[in-house]
């Protein structure tokens, strides 16, 4: 059993890398690639919410920024996308002749690979530091992050001349290494990259949540004031995890964008950022396995429900959220790890296996005892 536990992560990784691609068609595999990309966002939210108690409703900002980063690079480096001026065609619709300055670094692939996580990290650092330094906590933190999200959403939505506004940037028709990004071969590679990056994101989160740094995070979540009186300044701790979470969301957004084929301000809607929080709540916050389960399960369910009953998903999602909050406050993973399954079986009359009193009565030796005593008396 112990060996199995040690091997389990490798088994899961091998399953995702080799078995799923063999059994699933291109379309399904691509969906799973997206789920795994979203799982990285769920991990990031768990880091700041589940461990540190910062309920951010604005992670969509960082997610979308990562997506825009990779999309800008692909647009610039695709010949078929280039218009007469050598810049992406959509600019012509708005009469833009010169590439906006912030597009320039995205000509370079290495710079793009850094920017997709560094830009969100820097923005998270600045926003986070200002919020935390002013001791804004709890609901006020959530409201501010949501307000920031709306600012970004409206900015990106309205700026056709800078980033194609509400239409977003389409990546599926762009090219990379001479191949169409939307092609099955390319998508398989993106799937593999995602599958390999998800465990790395997991390890990053584990690095920050285990050990004494993680203790400090939990202490901040449970009683920040008390931690101050113990001599700790919570501000740098909170800023650091917010930066890490921002970077992970950026990475996640980039991976999601290349697999979904488009990035648009839709990624910055309030609903999207709240859904991200729901994945974590459903999976189990305060654990690192929970959010991955949550992101994959909820999004898989979403695909299934949307295919069968397209209008029903929002109701199902709402019901799922209420169900989890009321009946499984620790989420799916927390429910399992706290013996919820055994309790459920017990509710249906299947007694859990224990060596305590009622079971002891059924033991053959114990049953034999009164008989032997009675026998001896005869």
């Amino acid at each position, binding site marked *: 059993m112990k060996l199995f536990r040690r091997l389990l992560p490798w088994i899961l990784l091998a399953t995702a890398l080799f078995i799923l691609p063999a059994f699933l068609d291109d379309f399904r595999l691509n969906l799973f690639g997206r789920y795994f990309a979203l799982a990285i966002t769920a991990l990031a939210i768990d880091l700041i919410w589940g461990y540190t108690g910062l309920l951010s409703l604005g992670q969509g900002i960082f997610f979308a920024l990562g997506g825009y980063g990779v999309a800008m690079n692909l647009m610039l480096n695709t010949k078929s996308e280039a218009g007469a001026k050598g810049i992406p065609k959509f600019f012509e619709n708005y009469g833009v002749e010169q590439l906006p300055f912030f597009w320039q670094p995205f000509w370079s692939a290495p710079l793009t690979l850094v920017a997709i996580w560094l830009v969100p990290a820097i923005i998270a650092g600045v926003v986070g530091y200002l919020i935390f330094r002013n001791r804004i906590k709890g609901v006020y933190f959530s409201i501010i992050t949501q307000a920031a999200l709306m600012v970004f959403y409206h900015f990106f939505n309205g700026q056709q001349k800078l980033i194609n506004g509400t239409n977003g940037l389409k990546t599926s028709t762009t090219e990379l290494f001479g191949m169409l990004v939307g092609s099955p071969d390319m998508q398989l590679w993106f799937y593999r990259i995602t599958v390999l990056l998800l465990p790395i994101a997991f390890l990053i989160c584990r690095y*920050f949540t285990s*050990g*004494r*740094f993680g*203790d400090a995070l939990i202490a901040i979540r*449970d009683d920040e004031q*008390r931690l101050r*009186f*113990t001599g700790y*300044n919570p501000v740098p701790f909170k800023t650091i995890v917010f930066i890490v979470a921002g970077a992970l969301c950026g990475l996640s957004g980039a991976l999601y964008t290349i697999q979904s084929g488009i990035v648009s301000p839709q990624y910055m809607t309030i609903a999207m950022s709240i859904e991200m929080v729901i994945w974590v709540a459903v999976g189990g916050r305060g654990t690192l396995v929970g959010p991955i389960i949550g992101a994959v399960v909820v999004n898989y369910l979403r695909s299934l429900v949307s295919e069968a009953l397209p209008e029903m998903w929002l109701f199902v999602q709402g019901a799922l959220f209420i169900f989890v909050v009321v009946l499984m406050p620790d989420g799916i993973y927390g429910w399992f790890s706290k013996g919820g399954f055994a309790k459920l079986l017990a509710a249906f009359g299947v007694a859990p296996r224990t060596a305590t009193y009622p079971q002891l009565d059924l033991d053959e030796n114990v049953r034999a005892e009164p008989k032997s005593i009675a026998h001896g008396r005869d």
Partner: protein
Amino acid sequence: MTEPLLELDDVSVSFDGFYALTDLSIRLMPGELRSIIGPNGAGKTTFLDVITGKVRPSKGSVNFRGQSLLGLSEQKISRKGIGRKFQTPRVFENLDVIRNLELAASPHKNPFGLLYDKIPVAAKDDVQRLLNYIGLEPFARTKAGKLSHGQKQWLAIAMLVAQSPQVLLLDEPVAGLTDEETSRTADLIKSLAGQHTVVVIEHDMEFIRDLNAPVTVLHQGSVLTEGRIEDVKNDPKVIEVYLGQAKD
């Protein structure tokens, strides 16, 4: 005569016109043990809030070893060597008992220190010693939230000691403890005095008598009287504020 370690001079605190402290002056000498009593609303907790930086006084000065504490953040004051235990035992409930103590005992309290440096052996030994002393060794790996009320009180005091502060401010250290626990706490506090300056705020008169330390009585935000417990108890002014004036 030695310099006072902690000195409050003419401190007033007003919350929207209501004065929680009015011209309060208290001096604490190094190694001194001091009890502070007073009826509800006398300003006992506000007095600690002012020292630890939670509340900023509207007037007056607070000096620690000759340096002003005014305007410093809670964590800076704590790092200077002033530790505080709260009225309710505030421990980190989702951390193991030993992790609670290690957080308090850790000499580096910045994020990178916690990420890269191991906790020093000396601090680990301190934690072990404290665990033994408070009798929580068997619960070292138990979540602090699962402890009984008395155990939490002890853990909170132990965390304070683990910070190795020069001044310990104890707000109701024996609230909700059994008689036996109370007398053990008194022993602990007496053993801490001498090396540390200890301020105890309590309602439990038995406990105050046990401590056998100079008593300061606060009333309506300022010092009513100071002295030995026997003298204070017989002081007509003290009896009046506690029991109310007899109406003739």
